[in-house]
């Protein structure tokens, strides 16, 4: 589904160059939810933006569904961390959600219906006529997720989507993402700095080294589905995994995973 090969992104030139990510490779199968976690400055967001075609890499390749990514590809949707700056305050919730449809669907009624469907999927039926600022932070992020869903994507990129909400809202939103992924069979790349979250939602966890970011580890999460905030987090396997990830993230070692 998604192949990332030797992805490198450097800003600036020569001595002043800042290498954000260096030689990152990974493959993502269809329907997988891959968590990308790492310390601050490890380039996780840069990686995501390169995968999404929002930034062009300095070296390496991204191939989505067999086609190389040179610009923002079809079938992609993004959820950003800062919903306050990503949702448009001058549009109602419904118009925000329907935005990606403007490109593909001409009929207003069809767009409206699709938007309402997406809002229902995230549990916000009836909020369509409000403005984003009238909603709480958690609800606004749900709107952002609904907007991503309305685009009917095959790949969903989430850049620290729950970093700006409180802990309990975060748990609700994590479960929402899991449910949505199950219902729609979307492939998801979720960047986070929350270690528990990375293990809880992920089928795999990719740990990046501190900048320049390289893949330190690629762990498979063999926890049973459906996940449950209390039940799953009690399991010894969960505890083992999150300890492992935590150790990997905290280690100052910049060594990358040896390539096969």
């Amino acid at each position, binding site marked *: 589904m998604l192949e990332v090969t030797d992805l490198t992104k450097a800003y600036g030139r020569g001595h002043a160059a800042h290498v954000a990510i260096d030689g990152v490779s990974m493959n993502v199968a269809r329907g997988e939810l891959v968590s990308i976690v790492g310390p601050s400055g490890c380039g996780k967001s840069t990686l995501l933006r390169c995968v*999404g075609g*929002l930034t062009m890499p300095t070296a390496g390749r991204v191939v989505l569904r067999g086609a190389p990514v040179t610009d*923002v590809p*079809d079938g*992609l*949707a*993004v959820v*950003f961390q*800062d919903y306050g*700056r*990503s949702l*448009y*305050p*001058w*549009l109602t919730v419904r118009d925000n959600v329907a*935005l*990606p449809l*403007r*490109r593909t669907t001409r009929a207003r009624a069809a767009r409206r219906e699709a938007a309402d469907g997406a809002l229902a999927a995230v549990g916000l039926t009836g909020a369509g006529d409000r*403005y984003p*600022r009238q909603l709480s932070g958690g609800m606004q992020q749900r709107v952002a997720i609904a*907007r991503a869903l309305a*685009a009917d994507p095959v790949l969903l990129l989430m850049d620290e989507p729950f970093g700006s909400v409180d802990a309990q809202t975060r748990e609700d939103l994590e479960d929402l993402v899991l449910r949505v992924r199950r219902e729609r069979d979307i492939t998801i790349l979720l960047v986070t700095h929350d270690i528990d979250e990375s293990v809880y939602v992920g089928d795999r966890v990719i740990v990046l080294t501190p900048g320049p970011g390289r893949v330190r580890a690629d762990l498979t999460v063999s926890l049973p589905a459906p996940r449950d905030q209390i039940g799953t987090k009690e399991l010894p396997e969960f505890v083992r995994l999150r300890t492992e990830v935590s150790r990997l993230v905290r280690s100052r070692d910049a060594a990358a995973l040896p390539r096969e």
Partner: protein
Amino acid sequence: MSTRMGWLWRCLVLAAGAGGWQLWTSAAGSSFFPPPSAIVARMYHLWFSGPAAHLFLTADATGNILPSLGRIFAGLAIATAIALPLGIALGRSPAVTGYLNPLLQFARALPVVTMAPVFIVLFKLGTQMEVATIAFGTIWPILLNTIDGAATVDPQQLETGRAFRLSAWQRLVWVIVPAALPKAFAGFRLSLSLSLILMVFAELVGSTNGIGYEMSNASNSFDMTFLWSTIVLLGILGYLLNALLGAAERLVLAWHTDRGRD
């Protein structure tokens, strides 16, 4: 203080002020300061005692007040039509704006009445001169504020647009223009005040009808009550136009959160 109380209080203060003014002028008896009662009576006589079909406006009113207002609207319309698109285009091209900056700053700092004499020589007396003066003077606040608004669009909002593959045109209409509107409105509010000043000035020096022209007549014939009437009329018009703009702003910018004083 609740809004009800606030309104009541303000009305009381205005009434007290008007009352005080009345008392003082009556007592002083100076011909330079006619009492407000006389002024109001005169205003009614001059402009608002017409037939109901004409909204109670007299021929004097329709022959002077309406043309003045018309010229303000025309001047502002021209200024907005030029300044809004140009401001957005320039705001999105910081390089071009860099080249034009000194010229823009000079035009902004140019005292707004100084082009009127130029336009009088160019267009002679009359409506064309006045509209040109108003348009020229009111372009700059709208232009500069719109440039600022367009240049400071949140990059995250633009990136979201790109992430959802909006075309450049869609990004312009759905992201850049709405984001720039609050600042554009602030510029427009400034231009509104300027338009009144320019209207009066242009009519004082170069017109054959209008409120300024009436003011000039009043002054020449030493008709103080008339003169005061025109001044009060201008105050009322200014207040009404600003209120109108405020209402329009609340309508168009309903979504704009009040992040503090503007």
